[in-house]
């Protein structure tokens, strides 16, 4: 199977507010797919539509080759889910919840269950009422990741985890990926997505604004160059692709479009480069660029998604 998740033009409204506005999302088999967006962008709604908990108002949706609404229960045997807000039965223990959810999914891997409980340092004898947010999250993570399924849907899975446990979580996700599993990871923690994901989709106001590999997305942004030269840098501002030049004596900092890099470097060599740092745009920068200027995004987004 080539694609595990295929959403095309999915619409979901709650009353008058439109949570998903012609959303497109493609997740390929065997990849870790980042699903990135600010609060309220529609990440959780998308996952609930994929789980058949919410009924889409329009558009096409395929999940593991089936219809997520019609074939919900049958499809769910092949996936595991960590909800964004983990609500557990207050009078059951964490261990009981893990076994219950595992049994309802058709069994879980006992060895991996105990191994994960240990790695996440979870006390399974406590009642869910007594767990902190991070510990409730661990219960949901163990319940999902101990299942031997094809697809994992993780909705902001590391929220509330401390950095050590978050690192353990990343290790486990990598192991699952190496085992050939597909993972959809919704998040607004950029470093996590950067560390784990093969491809990503950025969602804003219910629409996918960008989608692709990291290389493809970096392609869309400028490289930041800081340089110190022996001779004055001169007329660099006039070169094609250079933006936002700030000059301070012999030091300069500016952004360069990918197409303008070669010309800029040739110019700099003539000025006697003494030190130079160039930085790739981080995901933060991509992210900020798409959420800071509200009006420009949808038009650009349409073009980007269409060109993909």
């Amino acid at each position, binding site marked *: 199977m080539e694609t595990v998740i295929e959403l095309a033009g999915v619409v979901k409204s709650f009353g008058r507010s439109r949570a998903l506005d012609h959303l497109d999302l493609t997740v390929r088999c065997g990849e870790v797919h980042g699903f990135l967006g600010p609060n309220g962008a529609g990440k*959780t709604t998308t996952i*609930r539509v994929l*789980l*058949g*908990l*919410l*009924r889409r108002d329009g558009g096409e949706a395929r999940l593991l080759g089936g219809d997520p609404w019609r074939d*919900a*229960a*049958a499809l*769910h*045997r092949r*996936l*595991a*889910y960590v*909800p964004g*807000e*983990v*609500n*557990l*039965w*207050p*009078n*059951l*223990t964490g*261990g*009981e919840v*893990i*076994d*219950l*959810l*595992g*049994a*309802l*999914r*058709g069994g879980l891997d006992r060895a991996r269950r105990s191994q994960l409980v240990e790695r996440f340092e979870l006390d*399974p*004898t*406590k*009642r869910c*009422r*007594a767990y902190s947010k991070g510990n409730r999250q661990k219960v*949901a993570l163990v*319940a999902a990741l101990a299942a031997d399924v094809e697809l994992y*849907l993780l909705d902001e899975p590391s929220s509330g985890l401390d950095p050590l446990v978050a690192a353990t979580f990343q290790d486990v996700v990598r192991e699952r990926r190496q085992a050939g599993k597909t993972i959809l990871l919704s998040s607004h923690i950029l470093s996590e997505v950067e560390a784990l994901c093969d491809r990503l989709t950025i969602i804003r106001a219910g629409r996918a604004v960008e989608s692709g590999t990291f290389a493809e997305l970096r392609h869309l942004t400028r490289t930041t160059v800081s340089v110190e030269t022996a001779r004055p840098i001169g007329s660099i501002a006039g070169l094609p692709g250079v933006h936002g030049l700030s000059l301070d004596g012999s030091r300069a900092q500016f952004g360069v479009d990918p197409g303008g890099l070669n010309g800029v470097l040739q110019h700099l060599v003539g000025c006697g480069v003494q030190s130079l740092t160039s930085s790739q745009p981080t995901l933060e920068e991509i992210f900020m660029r798409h959420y800071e200027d509200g009006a420009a995004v949808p038009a650009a987004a349409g073009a980007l998604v269409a060109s993909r």
Partner: protein
Amino acid sequence: MSAPAAVLTTVTRPGRRDAADPASRFAGLHRLLRLALRRDRITLPAWILGITGLMAAFTAMCVSGMHSCTDVIRQTAFFGSSPALRILGVPSGASVGGYTLLRGYLTLAVLAALMSIMAVVRHTRQGEETGRAELVGAAVVGRHSALGAALVVTATADVLLAGLVGLAMMVNGQPVAGSLAAGIAVGGVGLVFGGVAAVTAQLSSSTRSAIGLATAVLGIACLLSGLGNMLGTVTDGGLQVHSAWPAWASPVGWGEQIRPFGDTIWWPVVLFAALFAGLAGLAGILESQRDGGRGLIAERRGRAEAGRWLPGLSGLALRLQRGSLLGWAIGMLGFGVVFGAISGQIRGAQGAALQWYTRMGGSDHIVAAYLTSMLEMAGMGVALFVVQSLLRIRSEEAQGHLESLLATGTSRHRWALSHLLSTLLGATVLMLVFAVSMGLAAGPVLGVPAHLLGELIPAGLVQLAGIAVIGGAVLAVTALTPRWATPLSWVACVSFIVLGPLFGASLGLPGWAQDISPFTHLPKAPAVAVSYLPIVAMVGAALALTGAGLGWFRRRSLSLPA
């Protein structure tokens, strides 16, 4: 490292000495009061108006049903001369107002108590369980402010309720003093159980068990007052009954001992106020002794792995209702033993009481008629359990637990059916507990052979057909309109009970109205031989409602928390 050690030696132990500044313990009270009023602006008025409206309806029906003084005397006398009916109240002379209270007081008092229990728990333990109290408590808010606000709001609601219930009787032409006394009898029970809930909210660490504990106390109070009334001394051919001591051990009984419209005694009003104050003070003391968010009854550790019974949907549904089922079973056991034990006194019933039993029980054999009416009463009680238990399908959805479940290989149908079946299983157990305990207690008293159990058990199971209809209705309503599921289910259940054989006929309701209740149609076993047509019809109705509910449930989006 020496500095902290020095500090430690000089620090005074907090906790018991925090009484130094009484004002600080109630800091922010007025703001929390306004918050509570804002949150309850629909809930409490709806409760108060609902109870008031019920009282107005009861009074109007009794006024229009009584055509002459002889009617009033006859009806009151047969009520007073029947031990089983005296569970509902004690006559203090013949009057329309007094007769209305005999019919309606217990229902109204229980509703007032439930209103108060839920209001107090909503503003105390529920806040702690959901973490809201933490958010609020981090502001300039005293240790007892939330409890204080809850009690002030609840007490105000009960005082209003007392006045309005009195007014509801007055506008129906009843004497002012008696009407006021009746209002106070109802509101007083509400007040006391607000205090009870304040204490149970300190004891247990969850909303559900705080409400459950307080409701259990309410059940015991009802049992005590009923027992006291049954064992009371009857004079004037049933027009006057003076209750035995157990009635005085129960706040529900105090309301009856005020004897509105008769030789009204006002001083039990002081008992209400004193007990409320005592319970509020006790709750305050307990609150100073415990950590925020915890209950005094400590949480035990549990199993690290699911036991053999839990995995699976039915296991989960049974596990979730385990505590409440146990409480109900103890209650049914208690009522069964008491009602069975007094069955011997029924034989002595004569005149009007004899007629009533024979009409309601459908047999001129008085004991069989009595046992039938008791089973009908138990069936209606179990219907309340069924609504309470099945509404969990709503709360599981609203609290988001359902999201994790349906993300597994569980279908909506299997999940909903697991709750329906485990609830009906629980209802079956409860009816069996009642039938068996009543039979075992009645056997030696009546001196009848052991075949009594053989009659009572199938007769008790007959009630399940009517109960199943209510179960199906709850499922259908939850599927169709989740937001209104809880109020609609309770209204439907209470209507079926009021329209049913226990109240409908004696309130003089028209036949078509009585026919709405499934209980009206059930065969009156064991007094009358079981006919299967009505049972098949009821089971058919239950299946139709369930089918419709499952169909609707499959078609809608879940209403999950954000």
